[in-house]
């Protein structure tokens, strides 16, 4: 019996290639392996390139991991030794241009902003001390109330309702059959409501250091509370962290996200980061019709006009754009920095992002207000 179950010698190399892919984090199903083998048989003896293409078609590695697939293929079938670990960055990271530039400018920009900031910061500290212990409560409140309170949009599907604007012909017919074809009551339909997309952009630069940890916890709670949440971090790069945050356990999710983000506590080039976000069609689409929340202090090291253009573009795509900065502590907040003044007229809300409780209460209130 066992002899018959042995794989033919020739097939082993292909099956072990699939195993190698799985070890490297590619999700390959057994039926894909079968399809891969069938494809190779079908194509017959040809070049290595044909096998590579057959693997691409049947094993379906995601396009952003194509480079990894190619390296593994070369390693397995061509025995290539030159595996470049340094270049293993094909995940969902967009590197901003001229990354080195941000470092020098950090100091300059800090000095320039110092006078306006110092006062605001000192004031902010007083109010924030109370908030720290409330973080856990706020996150629990978010998880509990988000599904019911976050903004909704009108969907395309219909559901029955007592008094809707549309006629339910299907139900009316079924009921009329029961009454010998007599229509006694016209069934009604209404449009179903669906949760709106939420896009969270988190500043992880040095100036936001005190908030970064809590903001990541908050985004984890939000990702698990409602569907259709996308989370990006930015500093000197733009990184999509939605995928790691989907992991259930918080510690595990946050460490996976931390692993992906490589620009913690560095400089900020918000304008460039947002431009990069909008330039990738797949990412830019996440903002369309979404409730966009940006958690950032708006201390821009780069060109303020780039920031202004990006925010203007984003506000046109978004359903509602909220900029939450730790510098805004009260309702009478007046922006001091050049960047925040420049973007003020494009954002719908410019409010306090200094504590988890404040962010949670703003996010939960999004659904109650109409977009500006």
């Amino acid at each position: 019996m066992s002899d018959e179950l042995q794989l033919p010698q020739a097939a082993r190399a292909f099956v072990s290639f699939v195993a190698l892919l799985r070890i490297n984090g590619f999700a390959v199903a057994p039926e894909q392996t079968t399809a891969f083998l069938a494809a190779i048989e079908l194509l017959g003896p040809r070049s290595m390139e044909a096998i590579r293409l057959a693997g691409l078609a049947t094993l379906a590695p995601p396009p952003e991991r194509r480079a990894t697939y190619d390296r593994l293929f070369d390693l397995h079938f061509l025995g290539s030794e030159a595996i470049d670990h340094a270049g293993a960055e094909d995940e969902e990271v967009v590197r901003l241009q001229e990354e080195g530039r941000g470092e020098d400018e950090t100091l300059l920009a800090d000095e320039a902003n110092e006078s306006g900031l110092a006062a605001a910061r000192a004031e902010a500290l007083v109010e924030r001390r109370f908030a720290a212990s409330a973080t856990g409560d706020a996150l629990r409140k978010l998880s509990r109330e988000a599904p019911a309170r976050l903004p909704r949009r009108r969907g395309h599907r219909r559901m029955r309702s007592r008094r809707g604007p549309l006629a339910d012909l299907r139900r009316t017919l079924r009921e009329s059959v029961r009454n010998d074809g007599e229509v006694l009551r016209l069934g009604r339909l209404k449009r179903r409501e669906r949760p709106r997309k939420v896009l969270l952009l988190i500043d992880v630069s040095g100036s936001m250091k005190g908030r970064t940890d809590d903001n990541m916890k908050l985004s984890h709670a939000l990702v698990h509370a409602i569907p259709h949440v996308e989370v990006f971090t930015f500093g000197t790069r733009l990184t999509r962290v939605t995928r790691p945050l989907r992991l259930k356990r918080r510690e595990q999710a946050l460490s996976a996200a931390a692993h992906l983000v490589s620009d913690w506590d560095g400089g900020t080039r918000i304008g460039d980061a947002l431009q990069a976000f909008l330039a990738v069609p797949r990412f830019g689409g996440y903002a369309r019709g979404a409730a966009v929340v940006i958690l950032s202090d708006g201390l821009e090291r780069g060109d303020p006009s780039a920031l202004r253009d990006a925010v203007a573009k984003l506000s046109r795509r978004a359903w509602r754009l909220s900029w939450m900065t730790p510098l805004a502590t009260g309702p009478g907040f007046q922006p001091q920095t050049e960047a925040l003044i420049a973007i003020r007229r494009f954002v719908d809300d410019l409010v306090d992002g200094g504590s988890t409780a404040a962010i949670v209460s703003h996010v939960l209130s999004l659904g109650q207000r109409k977009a500006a």
Partner: protein
Amino acid sequence: MAVRGNIVGIDSPEALERALRTAYYLADDGLATAAYLGLALGKPLLLEGAPGVGKTEAAKAIAAVLGRRLIRLQCYEGIDASAALYEWNYPRQMLAIRQAGEESIDIYGETFLIERPMLAALRAPDSTVLLIDEIDRADQEFEAFLLEFLSDFQISIPERGTVRAAERPVVVLTSNRTRDLHEALRRRCVYHWIEYPTADREARIVMMRASSVAESTARAVVAAVGKLRREPLSKAPGIAEAVDWAEAATLLHERGARWPDAFKRSIGVALKDEEDLTFISGRLDALIAEAAA
């Protein structure tokens, strides 16, 4: 693994590539291999890529090569079974009940059934190609519903029973990747990510699609479009835009406009966003001069 035997005259990716060329579609090796495997293994073909790289065109070309009718199901947010599968003609049913009076009548007969794309493809699997376009626009529920269709190729209509395809229909799915598709869906398909073509291939596509365009024009347009794609624009021009641009510039030139000017004035067919136009306007002259050189 069910291997479909009856693809007429197409026994290798190269043969398919040649056949596609007669349908005015230039496929690269990757696409030809994936499409051939999809046909031969009887699996749906899932095409992903940026907008305007020719995903829908590929499906049309495949239908033309096989000599089959293309049935297109355009997905949108909120698409449901009654738009994709079948729908009963309710007003007609009600009328029939009224007219029948005391006699008995079967209101679930063929005359009352409205075929939608998926049912139509299922009933004539040997003469149709089903294109499920922009699946990423549909809801996740619809994607889950598709899973069943794509693995068993059957649909059950409660009033009439199950409709099963006599053979595996040819199905092409496309996605712009505005959201990640479910792994289970990708798994059932043969997959190909369409890249922007190389400059050389794109120039050949432009000439093939727009016969009035001269080779030098095609090359210049492709070079300019290639440069535009490297800029941080909100919508990079696709292949269709390149073809339109070449055609528009040729038309203006025939009407007496001078060359660089004809290019510049017809930029509106390639870039369709006011901001992108302002962004590029300062450097447009240099960019076109460089491309035309």
